[in-house]
């Protein structure tokens, strides 16, 4: 057995014998995928609605009925006054209130009071409520003929939602989860495992042996590479068979770009381990330098376009951003490799830069 093989064997044993960490490493992708796939959505559903009306006329009746039957709204109460409805919203018993002010048989005006705390959702709720009520009322008006309406007609719109016709959020999150977990495993786990050898004193013996220390490090990285691929595959399988996310692009290309990204992450892990002296520092550095910016600035949860320019520049320096972009294109949109050349080029440049830096700062001695 060569020294290199024995390094790989030894490191695999370390990983396999730490049951609790293994459980979390493989449990995390599953839980994240299920959460993002099923639980986390911004769909308009179960919006708690209060109706305020002085007297029910057929029009109001129809509108309320439409709200009641729609899948978006849940009618929770009928309040006597607008004030009472406001109070219900303040107390978080309702999200929107619809106030019909009636004049005799005709509905004179409809006012929608919305809990505006969440700007995105409140806007959507307003749109949906508008839509539901408008449809209900227009049907009743026996849609007056265009001629009667007189002047200009309005264009109709047909919308085609490309790549994700059902607007499932899973399509968006799967690449992001891949970007985050691969970085976490490759960079954080490897840096901690190298620093642990320093803390335990085994690094000292290693350095005092004739084996080139880099060979030792590369041998150490190999099992993590394998682990990363295992996690990558389990994410893809989960995505395909549990979340029904189509893998539209070529599998070879996905694997190739992922490999590039994994190499980049490993280089980053090595770099951290060169700087950190204790496991705690390595842990905090990975958490602060890697995890936080990745989650916040890579466009995984929050769109990069909405950030101020300064932060957009910062985000431009974060590798997962490009990986996630490339994966969205390759995995979900299924476009050809020519559409992701820019991302690949940037990732390759970053990887070689990090690798050079990691090798330059690598110590062959203790200090």
């Amino acid at each position, binding site marked *: 057995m060569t020294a290199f093989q024995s390094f790989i064997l030894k490191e695999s044993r370390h990983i396999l014998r730490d049951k609790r960490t293994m459980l979390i490493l493989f449990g995390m992708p599953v839980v994240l995928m299920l959460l993002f796939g099923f639980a986390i959505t911004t769909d308009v559903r179960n919006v708690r609605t209060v109706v305020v009306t002085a007297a029910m006329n057929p029009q109001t009746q129809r509108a309320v009925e439409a709200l009641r039957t729609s899948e978006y709204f849940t009618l929770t109460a009928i309040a006597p006054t607008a004030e009472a409805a406001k109070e219900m*919203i303040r107390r978080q018993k309702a999200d929107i209130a619809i106030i019909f002010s009636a004049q005799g048989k005709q509905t004179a005006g409809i006012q929608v009071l919305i*809990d505006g705390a969440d*700007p995105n959702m*409140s806007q959507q709720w307003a749109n949906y409520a508008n839509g539901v009520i408008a449809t209900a009322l227009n049907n009743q008006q026996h849609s007056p003929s*265009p001629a009667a309406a007189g002047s200009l007609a309005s264009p109709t719109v047909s919308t*085609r*939602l490309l790549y*994700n016709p059902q607007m499932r959020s899973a399509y968006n999150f799967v690449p992001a989860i891949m970007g985050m977990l691969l970085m976490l495993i490759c960079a954080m786990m490897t840096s901690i495992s190298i620093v642990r050898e320093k803390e335990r004193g085994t690094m000292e013996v290693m350095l005092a042996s004739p084996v080139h220390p880099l060979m030792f490090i590369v041998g150490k990285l190999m099992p993590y590479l394998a682990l990363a691929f295992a996690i990558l595959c389990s994410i893809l399988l989960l995505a395909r068979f549990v979340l029904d996310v189509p893998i539209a692009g070529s599998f070879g290309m996905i694997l190739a770009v992922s490999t590039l990204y994994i190499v980049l992450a490993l280089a980053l892990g090595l770099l951290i381990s060169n700087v950190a002296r204790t496991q705690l520092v390595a842990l905090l550095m990975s958490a602060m330098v890697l995890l936080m910016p990745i989650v*916040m600035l890579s466009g995984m*949860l929050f769109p990069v376009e909405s950030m101020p320019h300064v932060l957009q520049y910062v985000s431009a320096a974060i590798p997962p951003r490009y990986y996630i972009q490339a994966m969205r294109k390759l995995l979900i949109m299924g476009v050809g490799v020519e559409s992701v050349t820019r991302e690949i080029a940037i990732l390759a440049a970053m990887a070689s830069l990090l690798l050079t830096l990691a090798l330059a700062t690598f110590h062959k001695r203790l200090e």
Partner: protein
Amino acid sequence: MATLSFLLQKEFLQIRRNSFLPRLIVAFPIMIMCVMPWVMNMEVRGVVVDIVDRDHSVSSRQLVRRIEASHYFVFGGERSTYRAALSDIEHGRADIAVVIPPSFGSQLRQGESPNVLIAANAVNGTKGGIGSAYLAQIISTHGARTATASGMHSINLYNRHQDYKVFMIPALMAILIMMLCGFLPALNIVGEKERGTIEQINVTPVRKRDFILAKLIPYWIIALFVMTMCFLLAWAIYGITCQGSLWLVYLLAMLLAVTFSSIGLAISNYSETMQQAMLVMWFFVVILMLLSGLFTPVRSMPDWVYATTYVNPMHYFIDAIRTVFVRGGGIESIAHQVAALAVIALGTGTLAILTYRKNH
């Protein structure tokens, strides 16, 4: 009581002596409060629209100009064919393509309804959906009377300026308390285990309750300090102030701090190494955070997932703090959340004391 005060002195001295912790406690909230409100913005902005105008009539040019002029969209340019626009989408240069049919102007003049195609990249469902809906609104009202329901208008009750920061700042407070009060106590006890000092404490007659309280109280005080910093920063940087009573917010923060510091301690009682404690804590934090309604509305979740929010302390907290901070609710508005949080805090606190064992 006397023992507790000696133990507390020790904890505070240790936190103060640590080269890293005091800086973290001050710098982390500042960093989060200065940067994150700008980042945590799910507003859909900067949607890039490509237009394929195959009509070039007066009417279609008007429509193009209307879209161009909209603040909401970034005009990506005109393309001659749908294929060219699609290629832009594929390369990530555009998000939506609008195709105006050749007979757009003439159909309109004849009182017919021409069909305009909107093709949106819906990989990001929110962006694609909201963008295309808004665009559809612009197009369908083009040249016509408003077709919406008669006299219908909507009013936003709170957060009138529809500022995402107002919505997110309470969430940031929650994240800060969770991070500082969850992770630090967990690492603290495991650290004592690794150094062996906990054995020395375990052979003393110190009461479990005193020891655990001494470990937790400093982090509760840190939580209060961090909350105060958040209020000041939110006011100084963004001009955002609490609509309701500050005392209620502090009460909620205390309850959340008790809960998370207890969870942290319970986890550290079961962990051998810092790495283990950190990973397990992270696992819980991610799940509790994602399912709490911090970022996405809980009522949009499937019913079985929604059921989990009944035991999620984060959910009660985020619900209650938004009611007070954004909507200006009083104690009567959040009584139910406060009660639930208190029960959970009591439960986790008991768990922390029970799982700590002086005698194996």
